[in-house]
C-alpha cells in the first residue's frame, strides 16, 4: 500500500493570487504563515513586544492593501519585512530617534545564575543598542538574514542591491556588532 502523500501547502505566490481573485481565506493562511516571523523581525528591530502586535497587524494591512504591487521578484516574507522595516523607521522618526523599547521590557532568557543573567542582559542590551546604530542597509540585511533566514539573492532583490553587496553588508554588520557587544 502506498503511503498517503503529504498535503502540499500552497505557495505564497499561489495564495496571493487567490487573494487577488477574491479568496479571503488565502489572507488568513498568509497571516498564519508570516505573522510570527514578522513579530520576531520587529522586536529584533527595536520594537517593544507590546507594540509588535499592532505593528505586525499594520504591516500586514498595508501589504494586503497594496498586494498588487508585489511582483514575486522577492519572497512575500521579505517584502513584508521591508514594509515592517519602513514602519519601524517611521515610528523611530516620530519618536525623534529614541529607541522604541527599553531593554528592561524585553523577555530575557531566564537563568538561575544571577551573574549569568546580568551578563546576558548586558550583552542583549548592547546588541540591541548596536543594531540601532548600524547603517540602515546593514541592519536590514542582518535582520533579514538572521531572523528571516533569507538568502542573499532574495535580500538583494528586496533591498535593491546585489547579492554580493548584501553579503558584504552582512559581514560588516557582524563585525561592527561584535565590536559593540565586546
Amino acid at each position, binding site marked *: 500500500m502506498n503511503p498517503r502523500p503529504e498535503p502540499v501547502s500552497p505557495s505564497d505566490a499561489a495564495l496571493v493570487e487567490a487573494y487577488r481573485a477574491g479568496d479571503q481565506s488565502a489572507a488568513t493562511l498568509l497571516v498564519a504563515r508570516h505573522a510570527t516571523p514578522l*513579530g520576531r523581525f520587529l522586536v*529584533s528591530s527595536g520594537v517593544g513586544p507590546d507594540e509588535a*502586535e499592532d505593528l505586525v497587524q499594520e504591516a500586514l*494591512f498595508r501589504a494586503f492593501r497594496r498586494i498588487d504591487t508585489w511582483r514575486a521578484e522577492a519572497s512575500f516574507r521579505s517584502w513584508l519585512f521591508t514594509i515592517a522595516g519602513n514602519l519601524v523607521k517611521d515610528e523611530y522618526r516620530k519618536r525623534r530617534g529614541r529607541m522604541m523599547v527599553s531593554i528592561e521590557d524585553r523577555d530575557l*532568557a531566564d537563568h538561575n545564575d544571577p551573574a549569568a543573567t546580568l551578563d546576558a542582559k548586558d550583552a542583549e542590551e548592547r546588541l540591541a543598542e548596536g543594531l540601532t546604530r548600524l547603517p540602515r542597509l546593514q541592519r536590514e540585511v542582518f535582520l533579514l538574514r538572521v531572523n528571516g533566514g533569507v538568502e542573499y539573492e532574495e535580500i538583494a532583490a528586496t533591498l535593491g542591491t546585489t547579492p554580493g553587496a548584501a553579503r558584504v553588508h552582512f559581514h560588516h554588520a557582524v563585525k561592527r556588532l561584535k565590536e559593540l557587544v565586546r
Partner: protein
Amino acid sequence: MNCGDLLDRMPVVAAGRGNWSADEAAHLAGCAECQEDWALIQKARTLGQAGEHIDTGKIESQLMARLATARRADRIRRGGWLAGLAAAAAVTLMLWRGSAAPTAGPAPAAIAPVAETFSIPVAELETLDGGQMEAVLENLEGPLSAGETPDVPSFGDLDNEQLQSVLGSMEG
C-alpha cells in the same frame, strides 16, 4: 572552509534549517573568531524571541475586519465617483441638447417667413386716426418678407457646430 563561508551558514543553522557538516563543525571548534560570530548570531536570534508571543488569532481577526471595512469604503468611494460621473454626463447631455435644439426642428423659427410671425398690435391701431391709418396701410403694400425681419439671430453669435446645424436644416 573559511570563516566567511561559515558565517554565511550560521543563520541557517541558528534557525534550525540545517546542521553543521563535519568540516564546518571542526572549523567552528577550533576558531575563536567564528565562535564569537556564532555567539552573536544566536544572541541576535534571542532578541527576536519576544516577538514570537504575539497573538496571531487576534491579529488575523482584527486584520480581516479592517480589510473588509477598507473594501467597503473603497466601494462607497467608487460608487460616489460613478454617481458624480453620471451626473456630469447628464448635465453635459442636457447642455449639448440645448445647444443642438435649433437643428432638431424642421427649420429654425427665426428664419421662417416673416409673414408667419409678423404682427401689429391691434390696440395700437385703434388709437390711430384716419390719416395715420392710411399711412400704415401704404407701408404694408410692399411684400412683408422684403422688409425688416424681427428678431433674426445674428449668425455671428453661433459656433461652428450650431452654424453647421443651421445649414443642415436649411438644406431641406
